């Protein structure tokens, strides 16, 4: 039996289908990342899971309890971190912790022990008396995570927890998540960052409220079709236009260069010709390993067709 089981979930806002027949499952102690661009429906999905929105159709079960009917019993085992920072800015770090601990009935020695344990990960102890509003973005997110973890939840639902957070804090954040995963906490999170997918056990790509695909990071990158090349020089508009004229070739900007993907029946020599015509040395085009982003965009374009 899966710990979290979401089946055929749909939710519309007027004519807009925010979530369209979405299903996924998570095992206990597993980290599932929902990946997609802004507007893909990630936040709506998180809110549905946390009973903050009611689905038009479909079911959500957590720990064998139906969210629609048994959410009150689920509250104690759920830790939720909304996308928008939702702690009290005029309260200090410690006061926010005390408040959430108190709501969940974590008090006295049990609270202090839990607090010190979480400070050990978050490094927030020196800032205990600082107002939450005066914290940096990364510290805010670590505090929010600490508040979501203060009552030993069995499942963590995190909506874009690392958006707008510096790389160092992001790494620390993931280290905290790994620790709780080791303790058996099931984690459902969303992220717009493709590189974070590699840290999850499994990921769902989502776009336009639909699930594109699902799998382990290895499965996802392995599903890439075609041969990928990387152009490690600044492309001109002339070059981009010439490349787009070649059938069975997809190119897109990647960093300062281009990622060029060739279908099976297209040879690299055909591309070299276009490069020379645009005055670019074909030596700049080198074979590349398909990353998560390449896979995602390929899937997105296939769905669009």
């Amino acid at each position, binding site marked *: 039996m899966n710990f979290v089981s979401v089946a055929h979930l749909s939710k519309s806002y007027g004519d807009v289908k925010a979530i369209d027949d979405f299903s996924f499952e998570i095992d206990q102690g597993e980290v599932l990342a929902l990946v997609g661009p802004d507007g893909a429906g990630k936040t709506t999905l998180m809110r549905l899971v946390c009973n903050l929105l009611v689905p038009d159709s479909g079911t959500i079960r957590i720990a064998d309890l139906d969210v629609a009917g048994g959410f*009150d019993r689920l509250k104690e085992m759920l830790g939720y971190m909304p996308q928008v*920072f*939702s702690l*009290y800015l005029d309260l200090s770090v410690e006061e926010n912790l005390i408040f959430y601990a*108190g709501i969940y009935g974590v008090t006295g020695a049990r609270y202090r022990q839990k607090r010190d344990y979480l400070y050990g990960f978050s490094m927030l102890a020196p800032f205990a008396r600082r107002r939450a509003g005066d914290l940096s973005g990364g510290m805010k997110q670590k505090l929010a995570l600490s508040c979501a973890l203060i009552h030993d939840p069995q499942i963590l639902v995190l909506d874009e927890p690392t958006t707008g957070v510096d790389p160092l804090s992001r790494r620390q954040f993931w280290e905290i998540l790994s620790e709780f995963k080791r303790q058996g906490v099931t984690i459902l999170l969303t992220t717009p960052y493709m590189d974070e997918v590699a840290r999850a056990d499994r990921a769902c790509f989502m776009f336009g409220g639909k699930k594109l695909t699902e799998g382990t990071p290895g499965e996802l990158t392995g599903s890439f079709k075609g041969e990928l090349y990387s152009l490690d020089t600044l492309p001109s508009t002339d070059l981009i236009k010439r490349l787009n004229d070649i059938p069975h070739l997809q190119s897109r900007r990647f960093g300062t260069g281009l990622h060029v993907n060739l279908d099976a029946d297209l040879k690299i020599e055909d591309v070299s010709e276009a490069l020379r015509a645009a005055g670019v040395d074909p030596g700049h085009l080198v074979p590349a390993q398909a990353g998560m982003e390449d896979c995602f965009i390929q899937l997105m374009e296939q769905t669009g067709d």
Partner: protein
Amino acid sequence: MRRIRHITRKELYHILRDARSLAIVLVMPVAMTFLYGYAINLDIENIVMGVIDLDQTQHSRALAGCFYHSTYFSKPQEEMDPTDPERVFREGRASAVLVIRSGFGRALERGNSFSLGLTIDGSDNNIAGAVRGYAGQALNYFLRDRLPPGAKLPGVIIAPQVLYNPDLQSSHFFVPGLVAIVLLMISALLTSVTIAREKETGTLEQLLTAPVKPVEILLGKILPYVFIALFDGVLVLVFAKLVFGVPFVGSHLLLLGFGLVYVATALSIGILISSLVRTQQVAMMYAMMFTMLPSVMLSGFIFAVKNMPSLLQYLSLIIPATYFLTVIRGVMLKGAGLGELVIHGVFLLVLMAIMIGVAAAKFKTRLA
């Protein structure tokens, strides 16, 4: 209970750290009392006046009939108790009592001078002033009708005695009422933003996934403000005493007790509004709209409830200020006791329970 305590403590932090709103809480009531502390005078009809007729002659009955014939005076619903004429004032059943001692009929027939007793409830300054004027006029008409034209008026005079506010100082009448209005408005304003603010800043989203019931959130938010509003009440009363010299006849403790119930009711209005709207701005607007105007116009603050059309009289029953006005005027000016006022406290508690109940039922545990 534990969760209510944690929410209360959090709210206290919010209040104490927001210097600007704290200043409003402390300065606004005093400023409002000062501004509104000047009287407005209005004509009054249908003053309830009891008549104690000890003379029991055709003349005494005719005199009473003459008073009631005018639109200014009406009969009390219950019979007067001749041994304790003031009881009707304490119970708020009449604004004046005319005592016709025996010998009035004989004096009138013989043209002797005679003095009628008129006791007026001075705690309502408007009514008291009006009674004095109207009673004199009514008596003049009565005497003129009974005499041949040109005859000299006999020496019948009215000896008015104004109870509770002998100087008919309008501030004595208005300032206690003002305390009721100011407390209501401040209280409703204070709580009206509390839930709306959590909706605006997004903090409610996380709170809703925590094991806390709506009614616990509501009570936890009301509790800290009870003390703040009560402190405001004391502040305004001290100010009333120092600036306007309003007397305080009754029990301070009794008024404090009723004040506690009253501010809790007023805070419930704010919390009800807050649980229904989305933004702080709308919440504040509604809080002003639903407290200020109805309370000033319909509670008896300026216009006596008994002079209103019956529809508005019913409306006044759901305005908390209506009850507290009677209580505060009763305690401060008349020295009324718990027994006479307890029913008003009961009404306030019922109003509070209804509002918190509706707020809890309407409190959305979901977004959008």
